């Protein structure tokens, strides 16, 4: 099954079970079913639970927050992740603060879902990976779907189990990818509410820490390194991007003492910085490496976009640096 269907079917299932789950967003009605079709069929099956909205990103998140305060569990779609800049105030200064600031046993279970990422030539305002600007916000949980963990199940956790606001990141390319079947890869699941996966068997030589759709290029890089360089990689697939559960990461890195963090967002001040800082008490064989986008807007032309976004070769090079390079 593709990740798109996992998400869509999970929404169908949870909305059938619970009338308190509302789906809110722009252009989400059938037959259109949302810009990326995640909401396909929902408005037909659950006409009272789906609300198509004006193009008012800030206010539809506020709407969702108000509904959450009324006991609903709203799922708000922001059509492109690039537009989460418009909802920053609603998430940071409103939804995320309420429980603690009001000193109340107050759930604000709103899920804001949004497709992120490039590699489709959508250009500078429709290709970014902006969740890095929403990390480390007290009271806000940031999750990212992947091929490796049932994305529908992850979404269900966000909707049903997490009582803080959740920013739920879906990579655009992920929608069309096949979900990885259980058993297809050697992997262990941490037992946190939102699991981290440790992928790869044998005695690993290096750890790659990543999330989201980066897995696809990381898997290719790891395969290459295995075949060509006889290096064994262990991949840490994080699904809760913030706050980070460092435990499984530490376990791996304490074994390998070589670590590469891979993200699609701009490397500077990115997610990888926090990962590296959080592991910085571990003595490593080589400096930790980060792979991310260059500090430039994302250009539209394919040949240009490739030069800005991280590629498989960048991951390979970074891993090799952890084998060849030393601390100064």
């Amino acid at each position, binding site marked *: 099954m593709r990740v798109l269907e996992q998400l869509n079917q999970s929404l169908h299932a949870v909305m059938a079970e619970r009338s308190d789950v509302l789906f809110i967003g722009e252009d989400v009605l059938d037959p259109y079913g949302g810009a990326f079709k995640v909401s396909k069929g929902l408005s037909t099956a659950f006409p009272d639970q789906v609300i198509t909205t004006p193009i008012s990103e800030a206010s539809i998140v*506020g709407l969702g927050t108000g509904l959450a305060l009324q006991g609903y569990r709203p799922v708000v779609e922001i059509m492109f992740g690039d537009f989460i800049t418009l909802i920053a105030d609603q998430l940071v200064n409103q939804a995320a603060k309420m429980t603690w600031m009001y000193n*109340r046993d107050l759930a604000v279970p709103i899920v804001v879902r949004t497709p992120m990422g490039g590699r489709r030539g959508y250009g500078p305002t429709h290709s970014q990976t902006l969740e890095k600007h929403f990390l480390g916000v007290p009271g806000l949980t940031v999750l990212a779907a992947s091929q490796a963990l049932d994305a529908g199940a992850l979404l269900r956790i966000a909707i049903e189990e997490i009582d803080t606001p959740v920013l739920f990141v879906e990579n655009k390319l992920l929608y069309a990818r096949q979900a990885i079947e259980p058993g297809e890869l050697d992997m262990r699941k941490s037992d946190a509410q939102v699991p981290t996966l440790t992928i790869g068997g044998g005695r690993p030589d290096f750890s790659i820490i990543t999330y989201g759709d980066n897995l696809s290029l990381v898997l290719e890089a790891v395969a290459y390194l295995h075949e060509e360089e006889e290096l064994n990689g262990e991949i840490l697939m994080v699904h809760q991007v913030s706050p980070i559960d460092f435990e499984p990461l530490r376990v791996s890195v304490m074994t390998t003492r070589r670590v590469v963090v891979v993200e699609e967002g701009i490397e500077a001040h990115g997610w990888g910085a926090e990962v590296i800082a959080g592991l910085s008490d571990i003595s490593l064989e080589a400096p930790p490496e980060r792979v991310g986008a260059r500090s430039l807007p994302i250009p539209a032309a394919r040949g240009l976009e490739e030069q800005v976004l991280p590629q498989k070769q960048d991951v390979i090079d970074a891993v090799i640096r952890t084998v060849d390079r030393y601390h100064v």
Partner: protein
Amino acid sequence: MPVATENLSQILYRDMLLIRRTEEKILELFSAGKVGGTTHTCIGQEANAVALVGQLDRQRDFVVSNHRCHGHYLAYGGPLDGLLGEILGTANGVCGGRGGSQHIKYDRFQSNGVLGGGIPIACGMAMGEKLKGGDGITVVSIGDGALGEGTLYESLNMAALWDLPILFLVENNRYAQSTPLHLGVAGSIVDRARPFGIRADEIDTTDVEELLVWSSRAIEAVRLERKPHWAVMHTYRFSAHSKGDDTRDEDEVRAYQEKDPLRIQSARLNAEQLDEAEAWVRDVLGRALAACDAAGEAMKL
């Protein structure tokens, strides 16, 4: 507590007086250095709070207020000691001292200090009530200054599209902080909601009894028709924007003070009734402050 023989005029006066004296006390505590941060008092605007918010039904109606929220909170029925404690940072604060003057939640009442931020949230609360088939309404209060925030118009559009049972209470006190109306607000205030197809009405009085009748119509319109309503009250604040930062013309302030809602209402009461009200307020306020003293500084995170 209100005595059985109290009439409506007395009750309205007493409720306004409680707000007035509370705000005065808060300013006094600030001046004495007993409170940090900032605060926004509604001295001069008490009639709006009492007339409109005071008529809501705490069992079913919701209020989303802004930075100038004390009067709304008290009119809604929020406990006085909880408010004072919140501002003083004592452990009995209604939010444990976390929120402070601008960020208060009590029952179906909440406020936040970011202008415009609460408006779409209020729409969500109204929509929730609608979906549940309840007959509660949501009141969201904004000042003339908040007319500058885009979320307001996004919310007006949503409220109209979906027939949300929400009342926009617009308190035009002619200033946003130091900025007079004409430098911040172009055109008409009352008309701002009309292009969305939202009924709008305005009133220019500080007479709480007039405001009461007008507000009751506005509330009932929303409650019965389950549609948004834009209710503009032209008013004035006598106190500074926050603490001592007043740059308005003194003559202007004095002229408006002629229309002090308490003065207007006091004309309907006799001397004994006025004394009774003062005594009651003094007592209630005294007990609330004592409760704060007893609670001690908020130290629990």
